């Protein structure tokens, strides 16, 4: 009986010890969690060989994984037999990561396993060799190529289609979510709540948000989220809703210009013909009067003029 109590006590103690680690969310860097024995995470390895002073490697992750990051450095001029190497996450040093690295085969080698489970574990991991050489591993979920840097414009009362795409070279997200920015935070858009206003069509790599019956309030920032097991990456699209009077202004300006030109040309012609008429009248006499009738007809119009002789 007492042994089972002891076991229970021991388990509770272990649990408390673990919980202490998990629950303390210090403003400082969260130390990478210890490898949990229970859930078998897949493993992956990334290694980089550094020849110069620094290098940045992008690592795309979809699912939680036990990631081994391996840095190899060829060293500099003075190849010391021992140097210190340590790891950093997002600029802060990882606890207990400082090691003495020995020169093997003319190289320094640093390796560590990180458990990447959720969004907090993503970020910038750096392996440092004595503040001389640095290799950055940028761990992130697949990013979307910026679809549109200019805002999408649409009209009040019209509908608009906003598209977000994940490239063919990147892995497919499991699903897509849409959010509308409300001040500084985002509200998720649920089509079930307002079926007449929003419609979301999801393909594997493409998602479309259709907004019907736009109003001025619909303008603003929209976020499309590509959902992966590890994290959701956001793409940003801006929507601008304008009134139809906006393009009408330049249109009316151009139409007025056209009318002015046409009237000017007509007047110029009338003026010219009057000038020729009076000029010609002085030079010739009788033969003029015969053809005078048709001269004074208006110049425009589709009248078929027949020569009367």
């Amino acid at each position: 009986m007492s042994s089972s109590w002891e076991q229970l006590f021991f388990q509770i103690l272990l649990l408390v010890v673990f919980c202490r680690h998990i629950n303390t969310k210090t403003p400082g860097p969260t130390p990478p969690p210890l490898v949990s024995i229970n859930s078998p995470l897949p493993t992956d390895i990334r290694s980089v060989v550094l020849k110069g002073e620094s290098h940045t490697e992008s690592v795309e992750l979809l699912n939680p994984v036990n990631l081994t990051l391996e840095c190899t450095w060829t060293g500099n001029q003075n190849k010391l037999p021992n140097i210190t190497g340590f790891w950093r996450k997002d600029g802060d040093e990882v606890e207990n990561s400082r090691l003495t690295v020995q020169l093997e085969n003319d190289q320094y080698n640093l390796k560590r396993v990180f458990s990447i489970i959720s969004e907090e574990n993503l970020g910038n991991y750096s392996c440092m060799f004595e503040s001389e050489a640095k290799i950055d591993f940028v761990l992130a979920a697949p990013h979307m190529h910026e679809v549109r840097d200019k805002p999408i414009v649409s009209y009040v009362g019209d509908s608009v289609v906003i598209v977000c795409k994940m490239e063919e070279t990147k892995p497919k997200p499991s699903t897509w979510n849409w959010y509308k920015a409300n001040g500084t935070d985002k509200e998720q858009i649920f089509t079930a709540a307002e079926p007449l206003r929003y419609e979301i069509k999801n393909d594997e790599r493409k998602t479309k948000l259709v907004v019907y019956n736009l109003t001025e309030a619909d303008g603003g920032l929209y976020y499309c989220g590509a959902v992966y097991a590890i994290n959701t990456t956001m793409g940003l699209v801006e929507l601008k809703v304008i009134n139809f009077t906006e393009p009408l202004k330049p249109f009316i300006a151009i139409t007025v210009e056209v009318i002015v030109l046409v009237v000017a040309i007509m007047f110029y012609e009338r003026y010219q013909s009057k000038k020729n008429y009076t000029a010609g009248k002085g030079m010739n006499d009788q033969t003029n009067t015969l053809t005078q009738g048709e001269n004074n007809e208006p110049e425009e119009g589709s009248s078929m003029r027949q020569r009367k002789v």
Partner: protein
Amino acid sequence: MTNNKPKVEGRSDEAEGPDGGWGWVLVGALFVSTSLVFGLMRSLGIFFVEFVQYFEESAQAISWISSTGLAAQQFFSPLGAALCNAYDARVVVMTGGVLAGLGLILASQATCLVHLYLTMGLISGLGWGLIFTPMVATVMAHFTRRRTLVLGLAFSSIGLSSFAFNPLFQWLVEMYAWRGALLILGGLSLNIVPCGALIHPQRHSKAPAKVDSENRSSRASVLNRVSSYLELSLLLERPYITYTLAVTLLNVGYFVPYFHLVAHSRQAGFSEYQAAFVMSAAGATDILGRIMSGWFSDLRYFRLIHLLTMWTTLAGVFIMLLPVSSLSGSYTALIGISLLYGFCSGALTSLVFAVVPMIVGVERMMGGLGLLQLIESGAGLLGTPMSGLLKDITGNYIASFMVAGSFVILGTLTMATLPHYFSCTDPLPPQRRSLDEGLHSELKLMNSVSSDKNHKGVNDLTDEVTKYPQDC
């Protein structure tokens, strides 16, 4: 002053065309209208991306909009020509301008793809058809010695305006979305109306001389008049048929590089920017080719028809060389051949229309151009789908370009079968009227001599008269 010698000298092809003065104003008008017709058509691609997204249709369905517009423009060309022969060129062009603008304005309100076909395609296409052929024919009638140069200058507007319109349309779409942009484009197209207003009103209709005063309203005479307005008699003449056939064959292959060059460059392994630059380079030399060929042709060292065949042969050869040059993987070779191709294709466009009055005579030029446009429209509709099909079958563009180039060469060979092709001087264009009608026309001409000097209208000939001192 010799320019004012009336049409008694009608036997030579140098009869018409005062070659100056108001003619240059009309060249400016043609410049503006051509840029608003073809330059606009070429830059519509920017809207297509928007349409695909908004209407959720395939790119194929959307591209039919511009095909419909082009086909309508070419199909309604004889109608435009006939209306000019029957009525006034000025009114026809102004109406065309209004229709073109109206089509685009209505398109801005479209709610489905069919609306776009009907408005941007049919209505605007009808407007464009009523604009292009009449304006070209009117300008050509005003020039003789500098005809080709003037055409080259005016058609260079197509290339220049596509340079200007592409960024402009892009900006309009970003500011106002495609609806607002189309509305503004409609307004811009209305600028063709003042261009048309610059044409002097026609003094008489080109009705055929043998209009029977007795049975004026009889069906046969109406049909007779219509067929003479449309210049359908041209379809029975061998030189015209030969030339039209040659131009049709030319058109099958001519557009292929414009549609497929960028895709082919990308497939050959060059980047997006490199491929786009190839297209721009070809466009730049196109403009240059039009002006240079126009200027050179008017020096009259060679017959226009010989120059045209030279340019078409070269263009065909370069089209065939395009895939070969990119096979080697060299970017400079591709750019070089594209530049040469652009130059030759621009050079030949100046000449294609200028040769028509040589073959049919200046009087029938309007109808001749209209029919030519109609017949060559079939070639355009055939050429691009065929090259697309060849690409789908073979997997690359080599076959498409080879076939396109060979069609162009075939057109050249057809042109060589024109009568009097191998003579060193131009043959006389056929007289329109038979001998007994000829007497009537002589009478008309003599009357025009006397009335020309006294006429105070705004006819260009009389402008010349009143400008210089009178000498009977």
